[in-house]
């Protein structure tokens, strides 16, 4: 992509023009050093499965998409949705229902699309009702929270045989097993992504097996991150941030605040739906715990800890918090998570990643190396 900023003087103008689409006051990390670090980080993620447990990291990356969706909705447009898991779960269940009924490569591909659309449409319906109904601020949060709990109650009682859509039984508490393996393409030209490792010979290491699902998720995550960077640094992104900062004033400037919130909420729902599809596909199983209060608040935790006004923060914090949460699966995990959340909100309200960025900027300014095209002044000002 446009990240090869080290190309040299020859095509500098083209590279910097491409790069500028990804940069702006609404994201942190505009320096050349950041982009080099970014490429290094993606490369590290790409080689990680050769050495470590890629299957767990793929789950974290799936959830990072969910974190990103909340970051856009809450961090950039100021709509705190406690119900991102509603769209996540609807995406997952839609994928399950459609793919079980049409278990052919083309059908499963369509199921992926249906899951994303399902997440987006359900967000659009709820969003239409809320935003065009004049529901604001904390009431949006409460309605999304209540929706989560209602969906959990609903899905938990779908155990009977009357709760089946075509071949797919919803299964109540027991969930929906036997979701087909994720396959993309059409009959004759398709590729199956799960449990389908392909062996590779790497010089110096020897034969290793590579999980194609891992790379699919990595590509989607990097794509979503860069795509959202373009969005939030575009003119539309500036309007989103204006809505977050002061709805009434933005309205006075002639922007349709209601529509902005509606569109962003729908987009966030679709992204959460995609995350849900990948979650269901990875586990080949889905159950109503995705609507539980605990799961509903996890995205809020990730995004708060990482820094809600930072896309990078959402991704980094999702990976870090989930890693912590899984690795200390003891009784104290939730207590520590709660403490971390509490302390972050109280002491570092803007989150860890913006704080780290601030320290880096300060250190660089202090050593007198700042300036030139990469001067990070604007970003540090606005990301607060």
């Amino acid at each position: 992509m446009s990240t090869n900023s080290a190309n040299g003087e020859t095509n500098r103008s083209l590279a910097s023009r491409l790069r500028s689409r990804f940069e702006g006051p609404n994201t942190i990390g505009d320096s050349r050093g950041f982009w080099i670090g970014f490429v290094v980080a993606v490369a590290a993620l790409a080689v990680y499965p050769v050495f470590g447990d890629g299957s767990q990291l793929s789950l974290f990356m799936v959830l990072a998409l969910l974190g990103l969706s909340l970051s856009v909705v809450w961090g950039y447009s100021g709509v705190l949705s406690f119900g991102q898991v509603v769209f996540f779960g609807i995406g997952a269940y839609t994928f399950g229902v459609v793919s079980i009924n049409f278990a052919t490569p083309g059908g499963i591909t369509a199921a992926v699309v249906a899951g994303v659309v399902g997440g987006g449409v359900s967000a659009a319906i709820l969003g239409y009702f809320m935003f065009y109904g004049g529901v604001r601020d904390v009431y949006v949060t409460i309605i999304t929270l209540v929706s989560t709990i209602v969906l959990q109650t609903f899905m938990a009682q779908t155990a009977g045989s009357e709760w089946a859509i075509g071949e797919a039984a919803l299964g109540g508490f027991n969930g929906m097993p036997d979701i087909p393996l994720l396959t993309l393409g059409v009959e004759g030209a398709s590729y199956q992504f799960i449990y389908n490792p392909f062996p590779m010979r790497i010089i110096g290491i020897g034969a290793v097996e590579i999980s194609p699902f891992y790379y699919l998720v990595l590509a989607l995550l990097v794509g979503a991150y860069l795509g959202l960077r373009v969005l939030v640094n575009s003119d539309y992104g500036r309007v989103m941030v204006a809505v977050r900062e002061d709805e009434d004033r933005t309205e006075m400037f002639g922007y349709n605040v209601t529509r902005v919130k509606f569109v962003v909420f729908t987009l966030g729902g679709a992204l959460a739906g995609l995350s849900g599809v990948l979650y269901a596909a990875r586990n080949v199983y889905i159950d109503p715990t995705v609507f539980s209060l605990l799961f509903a608040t996890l995205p809020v935790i990730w995004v708060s800890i990482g820094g809600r006004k930072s896309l990078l923060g959402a991704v980094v914090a999702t990976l870090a918090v989930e890693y912590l949460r899984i690795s200390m699966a003891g009784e104290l995990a939730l207590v520590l998570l709660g403490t971390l959340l509490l302390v972050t909100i109280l002491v570092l309200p803007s989150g860890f990643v913006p704080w780290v960025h601030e320290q880096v900027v300060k250190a660089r300014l202090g050593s007198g190396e700042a300036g030139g095209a990469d001067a990070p002044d604007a970003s540090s000002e606005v990301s607060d």
Partner: protein
Amino acid sequence: MVNGINLALQFLDSFAFIVLAAAGLAIIFGIMGVINLAHGEFILIGAYTATLAVTQLGLPLVVAMLVGGLVTGLFGILTERVIISGAWPNYISQRTLGRDVIEPLYNRLADSMVATFGLSLILTQGARIRFGNSIDQIATPFGAISYGEFSYSTYRIVLAGVSIGLLVATYYLFTRTEFGMRARATIQDKETAQAMGVNTDRMYMLTFGIGSALAGLTGALFAPVISMQPTLGDQFLVEAFVAVVVGGPSVVLGTALSGGVLGAILATFSNLYGTFIGRIALLVAALIALRFLPDGITGFIEQLRKRRQESE
């Protein structure tokens, strides 16, 4: 026949449940602009304290319930001092670092929700670690009354009476006493209240304590009729939030009215179609109410009153 007595009793039951679940949350939200997502866990503290006071210490039930409310109230004050206003941590940091580390959560709705959710995680899991997945329960007092082929727990009728009594007491406290006047002055205009000599900081602390004590008392009152597990607070959360949203800005009147309206909806739909549909109906009612009355029932009443005054 789905008989009238049954429906009336169920209405009383739903009304009591909604009013009791919402009262503490409504006071803290209405006066301080803080959404306490740990509300359910405050109810849990009250329920556990009362239950343990009976089973471990052998206190009489009524005393144990008051203890439950008191302990939760004190815990609420602690929470307010440490987390919501950050007064104690800031006191320490002023002396060690020379600056505040915590910005108070007043009128920072989203942040207050997230922070108190952190607290709720700690409390739920803490209760699980300390007491396991359930504790011994106290028996439901008073037995049951029967009519025809039905019978109904007397205790639930008592609960309805208590809920009305609490509403009246809260109303009295906030409208007829010196404390209530100061508290309301603090909501209306903090700066002016301060200028008039109201210690707003102390008002916030006491209000949070009272809201918490009400939550604890709710838990204590329901302790004999719900199962004692660390997640019991979740059962109250939906009803509490919906009632606060539908009630609107006037705390006591709003809670009473939304308790009445939502109680009727919940009772009717649960009676006819089961608990699940009852809950769905509650949510739909809240959505419709917010669609047409964005400031809740009391906001709507206020609007009507203003319009009438203008036309006169």
